[in-house]
């Protein structure tokens, strides 16, 4: 219990500190002004979400290989948390895009692949709700998770290649192309904060999943 409280407190404090740093420590960006500050939140969430999906993929592989329930619990936990972070990315993106580009959404490679990624993991979680038997659910969702993760680079490659065929209506400069040193520090600090938050949430979700499993066993024993 102690360790979890410490980690939770650390996550909250780090996120608050990162928010403070992105508003007051990071210098104002020349062309976008205050608007640019959403990036510390937006891009850091994207990195944390991506890493949660990487954890999910590794757990999927480990489940298929070792067949230990704990990998399945960790896979579903990280998929859910990754989906939350990706949702944050998809919400904060348009908030920035509307004043910066004048439109909420554009079918740019990065936006579109993030959206497809989001859809794939929504399907992954939906699949899990539609299989009753725990071992079958774990195995089949692991396999779908593996296929989905393999698909992600293909989705990105396909869309980016397709974009270069049709010039983008809005030119987007990479936020990292020559990041100012203080900005870089604040950005990496935000990335760290979001990762600690992500790990904290995954662990909490994992414990819930484990408890669910124990309740299931108790229920079955009571019925027998």
């Amino acid at each position, binding site marked *: 219990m102690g360790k979890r409280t410490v980690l939770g407190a650390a996550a909250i404090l780090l996120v608050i500190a990162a928010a403070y740093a992105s508003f007051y420590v990071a210098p104002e960006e020349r062309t976008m002004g205050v608007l640019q500050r959403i990036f510390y939140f937006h891009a850091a969430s994207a990195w944390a979400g991506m890493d949660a999906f990487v954890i999910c993929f590794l757990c999927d592989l480990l489940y*298929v290989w070792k067949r230990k329930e704990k990998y399945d619990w960790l896979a579903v936990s990280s998929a859910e948390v990754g989906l939350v972070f990706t949702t944050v990315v998809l919400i904060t993106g348009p908030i920035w895009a509307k004043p910066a580009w004048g439109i909420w959404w554009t079918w740019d490679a990065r936006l579109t692949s993030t959206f497809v990624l989001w859809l794939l993991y929504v399907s992954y979680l939906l699949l899990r709700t539609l299989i009753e038997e725990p071992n079958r659910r774990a195995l089949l969702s692991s396999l*779908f998770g593996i296929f989905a993760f393999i698909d992600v680079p293909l989705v990105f490659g396909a869309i980016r290649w397709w974009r270069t065929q049709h010039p983008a209506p809005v030119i987007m400069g990479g936020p990292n192309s020559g990041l100012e040193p203080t900005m870089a520090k604040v950005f990496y600090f935000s990335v760290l904060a979001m990762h600690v938050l992500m790990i904290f949430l995954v662990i909490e979700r994992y414990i819930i999943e484990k408890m669910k499993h124990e309740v299931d066993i108790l229920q079955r024993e009571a019925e027998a």
Partner: protein
Amino acid sequence: MSLLPNTATLLGKELRTEFRSRELLTTTGVFILIVLVLFSFAINPGTEEARQFAPGLLWLAILFAASLMFQSCFLREQANDTLSSLRLAVSDPFAIFLAKLGANTLFLLLTELLMLPFFAIFYNISLGAKLPVLVLVLFTGSLGIAIAGTAISAISAQARMRELLLPLLLLPLLTPVLVVSSLVTASLLDRDSIVLWKGIGFLAVFDLIFLTALWLFGEYLLEE
């Protein structure tokens, strides 16, 4: 090396089952026809833009048709639990997948070729000399759809709401195929037609990656 003879026998079985009734081919063919006609109501088919949209619409129709067509490929085995007998009969379960995806590719390609004249007439597109390359694009694209579709239909057949689940899992996974094959077909059927070999290569890479994934993980999809 019993993989190839086993696959050939199983493929023969799949083809015999289908050609006895030709249910899949006729229903899917009519389905594509209906979708193509419905698209013509949603957009004005006489305009120049419609000619550019048409290949994308064709691929969308193929994608939807495939997600309907592949439903039965593993469900068919469930009625008399013939899948367990199949698994016992062959040493390598990959042969079952190879046979099923071979049959699926063949059926899909056959319906496409049957529908192609209607498509050309409805959307005023002359195929002529472009036909061999077009068939190549249809083949590489449909192979990708069939590989992913066969794998996912093995998953969805074991879940509840399977009729809805298959398109839900499959369609986001096939985004790369839709993006690239629409573009390749569009530039091929354009007035100054260009063959985008890079796109066809991409489709082949997609096929290869998913075929490898199916080869590695296929046997787990069929576990009892």
